[in-house]
């Protein structure tokens, strides 16, 4: 028990107590330094009856539906090209991995620069005679911009897939070849099922990540707002966490707590749904993921 004490104390002070506290506050009107006043479900009513929540959720779903498949798809492609030991592969791996070391705040600033009017990307568009979108002035384009940053930083996902690919026994491919399987058939019937536990893991952590993503969206909307670009990027980038921060900064603690709980319940529901779907598409003979 002595060994366990750091975690135990931390669990009670920094996890369990805050959970109970914020659950209670979510049913109250509360400001710091003032006593909480019980209002029942009013905060939750307010949230569900408000456009902001629907908008934030819509944005989250957008990022998950378009962002995750691109991220995972490219990660699988890169990993499968690099799985075998070949000369030069080490250098490629490093290059693909480095962007994921860059903190969200910095990659946000970097892509803000890359995508702004007159920046490198818009020059590229001009090269092909097309007009570049106003990424941060237009709610429709701010989300693809976020997806781009996420795709750039896919190194950690690629590494996990690499580890999964290396573990696939060669004999499986040899057996498939004997059956006359081509390149695509091997990928479809050997590789994909064998890495399905890894895919499951990355989808799960990816979804939780999207639900809680904060830093990049904050940097984008901050830069756009202070930089006085056109439009209302706030409206397009409000992810759920940002909404909650606003409420927190306004001192509306009860409402902020209720939002956090809605977010938690959503995360929980999605995790459970994914776990339930696992049997249908995740190959269970593969060791590992519990």
């Amino acid at each position, binding site marked *: 028990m002595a060994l*366990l004490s750091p975690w135990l104390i931390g669990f009670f002070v920094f996890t369990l107590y805050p959970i109970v*506290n914020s659950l209670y506050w979510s049913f109250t009107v509360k400001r710091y330094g003032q006593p909480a006043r019980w209002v029942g479900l009013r905060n939750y009513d307010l949230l569900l009856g408000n456009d902001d929540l629907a908008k934030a959720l819509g944005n989250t779903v957008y990022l998950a539906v378009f962002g995750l498949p691109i991220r995972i798809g490219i990660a699988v492609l890169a990993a499968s090209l690099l799985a075998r030991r070949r000369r030069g592969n080490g250098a490629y791996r490093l290059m693909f991995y480095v962007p994921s070391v860059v903190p969200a705040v910095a990659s946000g600033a970097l892509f803000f620069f890359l995508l702004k009017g007159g920046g490198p990307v818009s*020059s590229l568009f001009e090269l092909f005679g097309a007009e570049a979108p106003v990424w941060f002035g237009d709610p429709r384009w701010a989300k693809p911009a976020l997806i781009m940053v996420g795709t750039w930083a896919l190194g950690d996902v690629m590494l996990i897939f690499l580890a999964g690919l290396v573990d696939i026994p060669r004999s499986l491919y040899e057996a498939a070849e004997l059956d006359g399987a081509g390149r695509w058939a091997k990928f479809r019937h050997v590789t994909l099922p064998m890495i399905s536990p890894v895919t499951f893991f990355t989808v799960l952590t990816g979804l939780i990540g999207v639900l809680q993503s904060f830093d990049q969206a904050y940097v984008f909307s901050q830069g756009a707002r202070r930089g006085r670009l056109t439009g209302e990027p706030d409206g397009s980038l409000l992810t759920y966490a940002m909404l909650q921060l606003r409420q927190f900064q306004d001192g509306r603690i009860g409402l902020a707590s209720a939002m956090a709980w809605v977010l938690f319940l959503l995360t929980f529901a999605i995790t459970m749904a994914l776990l339930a779907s696992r049997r249908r598409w995740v190959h269970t003979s593969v060791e590992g993921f519990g």
Partner: protein
Amino acid sequence: MTSRRVLMVIGRHAVLIGLAVMFAAPFLFMLLQSVMPLSQAKTTALYPDHFEWSNYSTVFDRIPLGGYVINTLKVCVLTVTGTVVSCVPVAYAFSHVRWKGRNAVFVLVLSTMMLPFQVLFVSQYQIFSTLGWLNSILPLTVPAFFADAFSIFLLRQFFLTLPTETLDAARVDGAGEFAVLRRVVMPMARPGIMAIAIFQFLFSWGDFFGPNIYLQDDDKLTLAVGLVRFNSDVARLGESNLTMAASVVFVLPLIVVFFFAQKVFIEGVTLTGTKG
């Protein structure tokens, strides 16, 4: 080689080189922009006519960048120390010590990873406010001394790969659990401990959310927060060259750390991913 095979090899390299360009180009533009003269930075030019290295000193003049670096390093050193000191015994208790309810408690540890930090921070803020810790680095560093779930999980994976026989031999020789931990487990698990230290360092260096909430005074800010505030100021003036110079100062140490520690690092990512 048949011509089909040659085509395959060419195709493979074409895809890889294409991807490599996509991944490397943002870094290249960042570096080029960071040394671009201001007159050019406001145009659509992509390549500077001369390298304006003084952009870097300008950034140091405009904001207390040196102070930000020191503040950030303080937070990093403390959180890394805290994480290692607290997670090693806990991970050991979850891997090589037998006790009743171990698996159930471990599931509890893992489930805290699923908890959005938003659920916790509103209330944690009040705790730190009551303690009078706002506008100091204490809210950012003290919790690190109480073992976080991710590091426990990662370290436990490393500990599980250690041979039980060696540990049992030490126990037969009469060593207590703390002695086994210090003299047998820790030397063998050095790569694992390095991995959690590096992950914690990267996280603390780049973290924005916590420092942005808890730190107010300009002389107390960490690099991440200082950078965001600086960027929103210079964005108005169109000085994207300065923004990029500041970003280089922010990101370069991380890339250096990564290159020196890539082996440990890659093992760490791989272990968190595949075995559970």
